[in-house]
């Protein structure tokens, strides 16, 4: 929005949620009125295995301060194996981000089932708090997006 007061740091957080478990878990958190900060914005994907590392880097490039990916618990994937692939991909990606000096904790994977509204909200609260403590992402952003 055009006139934004230069107030305290409000992080931008992207959450990728799989359609079958975590998105439904987020819905349940909503219908149970379990609050978490508005900084989190959810993108629906069919499965955690749809999340391309490029999406995560893209979010950071465009100024995200944290990216979290949620999927069905291992073993519960709607597509039976998707989250297992996602788990390996994200482990390696996060390890690489750590390797090049991106603060640990800006990325996270959490398995949230459709029944775990409480866990969804707790996870988001925790994650947002972590991002607040880490502050603005400066190591992985494209400065041109600040303008």
């Amino acid at each position: 929005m055009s006139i934004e007061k230069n107030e305290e740091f409000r992080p931008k957080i992207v959450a990728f949620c799989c359609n079958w478990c975590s998105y439904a878990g987020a819905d349940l958190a909503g219908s149970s009125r379990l609050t978490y900060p508005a900084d989190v914005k959810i993108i629906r994907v069919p499965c955690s295995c749809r999340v391309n590392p490029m999406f995560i880097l893209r979010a950071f490039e465009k100024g995200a301060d944290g990216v979290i990916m949620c999927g069905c618990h291992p073993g519960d994937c709607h597509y039976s194996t998707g989250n297992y692939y996602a788990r390996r991909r994200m482990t390696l990606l996060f390890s690489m981000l750590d390797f090049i000096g991106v603060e640990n904790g800006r990325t996270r994977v959490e398995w949230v089932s459709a029944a775990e509204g409480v866990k969804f909200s707790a996870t988001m609260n925790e994650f947002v708090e972590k991002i607040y403590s880490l502050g603005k992402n400066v190591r992985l952003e494209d400065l041109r997006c600040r303008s």
Partner: protein
Amino acid sequence: MQRIGVFVCHCGSNIAATVDVKKVVEMALLEPGVVHAEDYQYMCSEAGQAKIAAAIREKHLTGIVVCSCSPRMHETTFRKAAERAGLNPYMVEIANIREHCSWIHKDMEEATKKAVILARAAIAKVNLNTPLKPGESRVTKRALVIGGGIAGIQTALDIADAGYEVDIVEKTPSIGGRMSQLDKTFPTLDCSACILTPKMVEAAAHEKIKIYTYSEVEKVSGFVGDFTVDIRKKARSVDMDKCTGCGVCQEKCPSRKTPSEFNRGLNTRSAIYTPFAQAIPNVPVIDREHCIKFQTGKCGVCAKVCQAGAIDYGQKDEIVTEKYGAIVVATGFDTIKLDNYDEYAYSQSKDVITSLELERIMNAAGPTKGHLERLSDGKAPKEMVFIQCVGSRCSDNRGKSYCSKICCMYTAKHAMLIRDKYPDVNVTVFYIDVRTPGKNFDEFYRRAVEQYGVNYIKGQVGKVAPQPDGRLLVQASDLLDNRQIKMEADMVVLATAIEPNPDVRKIATMLTASIDTNNFLTEAHAKLRPVESPTAGIFLSGVCQGPKDIPETVEQAGAAAVKAIGLLAKDKLLTNPCTAQSDILLCNGCSTCANVCPYGAITYEDKEVNDHGIRETRRVAVVNSALCQGCGACTVACPSGAMDLQGFSNRQIIAEVDAICR
């Protein structure tokens, strides 16, 4: 450039109380591509849908965004509304500003800001949407029921009665399941066998039903409407066609020391056996592990005594491959292992038994011929203690967190039957809560107390200790009297928690049906789609979905049958168009995508391509859109980005990311 309409729903005050919907409309109008935006009380109402339709027609919209509740709620509603107005249904995107916004935020300014961003992301996505058309696939008009208990039998009967072929696959030598092990049933005290056997016979005789007993599902491939299933018919060693069911072989069999599965190991059976007298089919099987002929090569008594010449030692497992349109899972339950409950002395004393074991003891065909007696010394008990909630309602890791639901009622039944048959036996029930919702259920429980004088004590048993004299010291608390009770009992019956049949995990994996942390199969919606699995074409019947008693199981079996019939009645199905597609100009043919596809939907073909004037034959990936379920695993595995997912394309998701981070 799209012409996008944005529709912001108030959802009464559900959204409007925390989100300034007018502001969302105002901000949406500033987004590229948006030519129309409006808000309304209830977008999902007929009037709301009419507004959408009108805007599509009048403003020539090519895409719409509805800012409302979760797409899991009304995406279909709005897609249909758009379709009726002449817009491709896949040109609709939902911004979830209720569950993900208004309901979780309190501050109006914050919530409004977020709603605007969520709308922006949906607009950015719809800008890149393309019209999609679902494909079609045929429906094989035959159903498979996995499990031949009361749930499976009832489902099969209902489907068959509607005129469709049904196969039942049962792991054990006979259909009948747990219900066949029960003595009487609550709350009417019918004899279980008396009401079950006719159903078993009906199923066996039904011309549309084919029963595979002593068989297991080996492999499942395909998808809704067109499953291909391999069924392993284990070698019975008895020719089904020749056997007359005379039973002589079982009488003459010299190997008689195998614990009887049917009697919960309380007595033994022969190596060639039918599990129980009313077994269907009434054809025995040879348990090769315990058969002397198979173990040592010497014996062959059964073959000698069999008049019909039905014994066939050379029989081999057989794989039958069948096609089905729908699959119903009815794999039932078992009681949990009590290895972690030392305090109840189950493994130390023969006189501490589970309720299911008591069923067999009480049954006339059981190990004690229906006489209530201590298994240790055969003496009639004088003092009996029932302990409720053994392993149920436990949040520690020893038991199950859920209520097993049936224990309160069957314990009342047991107590009542004992008091009725043996009035001199004292019966004490230690309970935490007595839960009796259901028609005539509480009356039944009260009858046990009032009419039969069963002693109900609120308080859990802390320990059961076998005494030197063979009796059992029961230490419990009486919470209402605020005292600790130490009493001696002759028999202790544990209302053991039930859990889904352990095989269900394997089956769920084969079916790609999801399962919860307790191994119960997950329903597509807890309230609105309770008998369907989230995986299309898979239906749930009985305790595999959650604890339930017989009437509920039969109800659910019928419901699952109806859902299956509804599917089988269709000639063809529309397939989800959100499938992967490979760009042949970018594809390397490296096979990486096929390696991660859970559906085997990707194959490779040598195709003639024209790459900007260069014509050559290339090995490229081809997606079978009928098999593809749209998970997207391949899209990330593909290094060149040749694989993309329709409806969730790389560029669409990136557009959403950009819109959110802006």
